[in-house]
């Protein structure tokens, strides 16, 4: 029978980091309570046996009501294990020991690992390891999950411990209602074994908080930090994206095009202009995703996001959202997909869904491309930045409007804001690299299937029947645009532009490329054509519609996956299309009437 150990601990104890240390697998590391949602497990070799190590979600206690805690508890109660490896934060023993005593009552073999012992020592906390181990009747190891000290010794201890407990056992799953006893035991145990200085010296976290959480400096500093994150993402990511785009282009003209030149014209067109260009465009966003995740990982692991939630909660709770939703909104400026996945930290399902419904209105980098292109083509250099700024303002306004209208559903189930403010930590490079690799792999796998399908469909629409000119009125897309004309002409969006909007449904970054195909011109030439064909009212109406009209396919797929059904995906689609049409209509008709 195979051996299995469950890794148990409260959130923020460095559980995932220790898991990575022991197994070398790329588990997600988060400095935000309750981030690990899927159960991670990996095999590791201890002595002469292969052991499965399962990383359970962080739990505060066995009676927890959060989804994470239920998952962890269910696992412990039903799955036979050789033992529990319990990780505790040495600086917070006074509240973590209660969990140990609860777990002990399950009758499973246990081994304790005290993490961040160095940090505890530097804060003047002294722990009598021998006494503590004796009183609990459990072996104890000291480790630093982040730096790796004590990990070889922990492996050794696990090996001997496994030899003593060779057979998996199931927990005695009786209901624990002995909390008061446990509290009492904890207090007397603490008094005997842990010495905490009565007044902690002002640590560095306190000093940083005095500046970053300052009553009136805090918010401006917060915005400055987020601005810095985006500067880093675009400063590093955009050149990489351009480079990858160039590479894919070279590959296409120099290698793939000659290789398939023997095929019929429609097949070449499908493979190159359909699949290759479509998928390639999405691929070029990978560098931005990687850099974005690394930058966000620094912010996330440092413990700053909890502070941002603290600063913004007052404003957000008036909209039926909370401080965490605002943070996600900002993350959405890069790409809506990771921001939506970040909504997992919100425990209340209704509020989590409300947050996810607002994220598609966050002006992502793909839409920014479209707006940059249009504002430079149609508006004067003096007006362009203000046009762009107005679109960001509208993006926030629609987010708040959506939350305010839909909050009824979340109002009955308001998540109390009660979270730990973790001490600031410096993330290590290897953890960052692994995390961003893992997330980008996730992004590619998720995006892959959906986008290939969408791209193929769009190619088919614009190229069938095959004898018609691409995207002409005779093609399927052209006929579709003809049918859609009654919808789009009141918005000042002509048929050719509405075909580009069809492309934008797959991914907003395709819109400009689609326009290039439709008008048969690229770059500056396309700018000239747009300038001739559109006045500023039409252009702004088109941009308003593009900003709001529909989340891209990846975002919709993410929404579907995260909510576990298509219901909210359709709701989001219908809602955003409706709002987009209303806003463009009101703007276009008002502006025309005033002219």
């Amino acid at each position, binding site marked *: 029978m195979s051996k299995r150990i469950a890794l148990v601990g409260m959130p923020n104890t460095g559980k995932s980091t220790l898991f990575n240390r022991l197994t070398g697998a790329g588990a997600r590391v988060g400095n935000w309570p309750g981030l690990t949602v899927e159960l991670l497990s990996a095999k590791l070799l201890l002595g002469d046996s292969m052991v499965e190590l399962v990383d359970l979600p962080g739990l505060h206690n066995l009676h927890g009501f959060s989804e994470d805690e239920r998952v962890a508890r269910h696992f412990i109660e039903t799955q036979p294990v050789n033992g529990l490896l319990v990780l505790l934060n040495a600086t917070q023993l006074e509240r973590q020991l209660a969990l140990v005593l609860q777990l002990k009552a399950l009758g499973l073999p246990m081994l304790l690992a005290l993490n961040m012992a160095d940090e505890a020592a530097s804060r003047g906390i002294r722990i009598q390891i021998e006494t503590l181990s004796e009183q609990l009747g459990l072996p104890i190891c000291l480790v630093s999950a982040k730096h790796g000290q004590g990990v070889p010794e922990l492996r050794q201890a696990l090996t001997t411990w496994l030899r003593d407990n060779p057979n998996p056992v199931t927990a005695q799953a009786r209901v624990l209602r002995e909390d008061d006893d446990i509290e009492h035991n904890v207090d007397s145990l603490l008094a005997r074994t842990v010495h905490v200085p009565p007044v902690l010296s002002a640590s560095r976290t306190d000093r940083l908080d005095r500046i970053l*959480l300052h009553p009136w400096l805090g918010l401006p500093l917060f915005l400055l930090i987020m601005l810095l994150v985006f500067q880093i993402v675009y400063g590093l990511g955009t050149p990489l994206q351009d480079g990858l785009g160039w590479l894919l282009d070279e590959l296409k003209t120099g290698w793939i095009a000659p290789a398939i030149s023997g095929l019929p014209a429609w097949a070449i067109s499908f493979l190159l202009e359909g699949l290759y260009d479509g998928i390639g465009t999405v691929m070029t966003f990978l560098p931005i995703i990687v850099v974005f995740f690394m930058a966000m990982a620094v912010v996330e692991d440092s413990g700053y996001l909890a502070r941002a939630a603290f600063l913004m909660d007052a404003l957000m709770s008036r909209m039926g959202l909370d401080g965490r939703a605002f943070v996600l909104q900002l993350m959405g400026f890069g790409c809506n997909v990771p921001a939506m996945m970040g909504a997992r930290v919100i425990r209340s399902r209704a509020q989590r869904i409300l947050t996810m419904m607002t994220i598609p209105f966050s002006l992502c980098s793909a839409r920014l491309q479209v707006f940059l292109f249009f504002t430079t083509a149609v508006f004067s250099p003096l007006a362009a930045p203000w046009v762009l700024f107005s679109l960001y303002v509208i993006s926030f306004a629609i987010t708040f409007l959506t939350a305010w209208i839909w909050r009824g559903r979340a109002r009955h189930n308001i998540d109390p804001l009660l979270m730990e403010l973790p001490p600031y930590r410096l993330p290590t490079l290897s953890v960052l690299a692994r995390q961003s690799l893992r997330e980008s792999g996730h992004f590619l796998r998720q995006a892959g299937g959906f986008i290939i399908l969408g791209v193929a469909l769009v190619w088919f629409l614009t190229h069938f029947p095959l004898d018609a000119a691409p995207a002409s009125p005779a093609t399927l897309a052209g006929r579709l645009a003809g049918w859609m004309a009654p919808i789009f002409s009141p918005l000042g969006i002509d048929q050719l532009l509405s075909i580009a909007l069809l492309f934008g449904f797959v991914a907003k970054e395709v819109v400009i490329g689609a326009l290039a195909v439709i008008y048969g011109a690229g770059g500056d030439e396309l700018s000239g054509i747009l300038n001739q064909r559109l006045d500023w009212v039409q252009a702004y109406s088109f941009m308003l519609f593009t900003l709001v009209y529909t989340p891209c396919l990846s975002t919709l797929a993410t929404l579907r996956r995260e909510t576990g059904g298509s219901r909210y995906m359709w709701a989001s689609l219908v809602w955003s299309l409706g709002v987009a049409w209303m806003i463009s209509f009101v703007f276009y008709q008002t502006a025309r009437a005033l002219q």
Partner: protein
Amino acid sequence: MTHLCSLSTVPAGRCCVIARIDADADLTARMRALGLQLGRRVHVMRRSPFKGPIQVRSGQTDIIIRRSDAGLIQVRPCDPGGDTAVFKESECA
């Protein structure tokens, strides 16, 4: 007779002892898990502007709690003088 104050009204920099929690079972359990439980001594670290959350420290753990949720926690001052210490009527707005 001890006069209790709601934790949401305690000014920053003050120390108090949790005397009563009026939250439901779920929230009480979450509070307990973060160290907010009867008899615990907590320090109010700071209050965010615009009636936002407050930051309290229980032992070595810093917690942020929305003001409405903190309103469910009743506290008395921790005073070296002992049981006679009470909040003045004017301090509980």
